[in-house]
């Protein structure tokens, strides 16, 4: 960023919930500082610039693009490519762009089964003519095209070259600010790094007292009242904290809710869900296979438990295509 020129910033949302936008607004009074430091060239939720304005920009005109949301449709992908072209630095901002996040759980289905349920089978749907969205529809005036809905949710890095990753669902405001400061000061680490998160896991920030673990029974959060002093995992509630990067301030365990793993896996861990699964199973208090099987079978939804945020970024990425949920090949 040259001299006293303002940072040219763009923010985009692909398949997302809008929470990352709220997270930016959570900067509160620092937004005024941001306004002094940066010119926001594109931010659909807040200002009225259009796609064609971006297309008209010179390549690499934008200094930093904070791209949140997963790649669900051809429009999302198109914008990913567009922003890569028009930005010096492309940041996968938030868990959706980084890992797929909640939209990524649709990877247990495909387009057909999603549409069948949403437009035809859902109990609250009234669609006697069985109208389903089509990519192209002919009307008297001509052709209407809508973006294609992909079978598989992808992460930003799976369709484009990404410079930095800011994890979190959403990234916490203090972390967002530290990333902006690093951008402004020019102190970002090597390309491809995760920024705005710690090297250690959530346990490092967590208030609980932790001990050796021996779990005889797994409980879901509504099934017991945990004591508020000891680690939830020690008490049989699966907490993703040990397998999740810290930096969020362990906000969830602070209020006695187990960590869900939204800040992505620890550095160097190849697959967050597999790492968490391994730890959870290893401390099951069983000395026979039958007993072990009985205890782990209480975990009713392994993918939902271990891959809640990171399914598209995992080793397998999605369930077997071409099969209905429950079918195997």
């Amino acid at each position, binding site marked *: 960023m040259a001299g006293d020129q303002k940072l040219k910033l763009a923010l985009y949302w692909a398949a997302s919930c809008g929470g990352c936008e709220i997270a930016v607004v959570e900067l509160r009074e620092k937004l005024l500082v941001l306004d002094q430091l940066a010119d926001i060239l594109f931010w659909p939720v807040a200002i009225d610039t259009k796609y064609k304005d971006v297309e008209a920009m010179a390549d690499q005109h934008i200094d930093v693009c904070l791209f949140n949301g997963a790649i669900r449709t051809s429009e999302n992908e198109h914008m990913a490519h567009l922003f890569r072209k028009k930005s010096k630095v492309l940041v996968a901002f938030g868990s959706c762009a980084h890992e797929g996040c909640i939209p990524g759980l649709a990877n247990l289905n495909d387009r057909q089964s999603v549409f069948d349920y949403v437009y035809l089978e859902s109990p609250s749907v009234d669609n006697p003519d069985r109208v389903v969205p089509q990519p192209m529809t002919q009307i008297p005036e001509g052709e209407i095209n809508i973006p294609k809905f992909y079978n598989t949710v992808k992460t930003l890095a799976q369709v484009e070259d990404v410079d930095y990753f800011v994890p979190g669902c959403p990234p916490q405001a203090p972390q967002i600010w530290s990333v902006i400061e690093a951008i402004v000061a020019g102190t970002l680490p090597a390309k491809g790094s995760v920024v705005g998160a710690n090297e250690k896991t959530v346990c490092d920030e967590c208030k609980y007292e932790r001990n050796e673990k021996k779990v005889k029974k797994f409980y879901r959060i509504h099934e017991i009242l945990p004591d508020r002093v000891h680690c939830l995992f020690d008490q049989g509630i699966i907490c993703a904290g040990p397998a999740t990067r810290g930096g969020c301030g362990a906000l969830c365990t602070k209020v006695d809710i187990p960590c869900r793993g939204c800040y992505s896996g620890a550095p160097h861990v190849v697959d967050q869900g597999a790492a968490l*699964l391994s730890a959870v199973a290893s401390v099951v208090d069983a000395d026979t296979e039958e007993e072990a099987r009985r205890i782990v079978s209480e975990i009713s939804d392994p993918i939902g438990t271990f891959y809640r945020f990171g399914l598209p970024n995992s080793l*397998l990425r999605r369930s077997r295509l071409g099969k209905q949920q429950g079918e195997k090949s």
Partner: protein
Amino acid sequence: MNNGEFEPRIIAFLCNWCTYTAADAAGVARMEQPANVDVIRVMCTGRIEPMFILKAFAEGADGVIVSGCHPPGDCHYNNGNFKTFRRMPLVEALLGQFGIDEGRFHWGWISGAEAPLWAQLARNFTEQVRALGPLDWKSQKASKED
């Protein structure tokens, strides 16, 4: 490929002291086994992370085997195999949710003295996976959206 017939690619994670020894002995004794099974040696099945199994499928394996010393008393490291029998049922459940047939994942125990059992497992499992057809997870990853 053999006359265009599908040849399964199977990765087996074996513990050094028991099943790896059995597989080695089976080889030395020229017991009949197919070339479809590739062995990766670890010191103890307790070393086997669920991640390895998923990685194998993700890289194109059609089947995966995990085998080590019989519990409760045979583990060279006392109870590494206890951690294995705690982890593997959960891996089975996970693979099922991913839509991978249980016939593609076998885990069990073969001691160093049971070389014929290894050869038999290699033969039977290869045929079992052959009947299920190629898994070819990589092409699912690589597919461009239509």
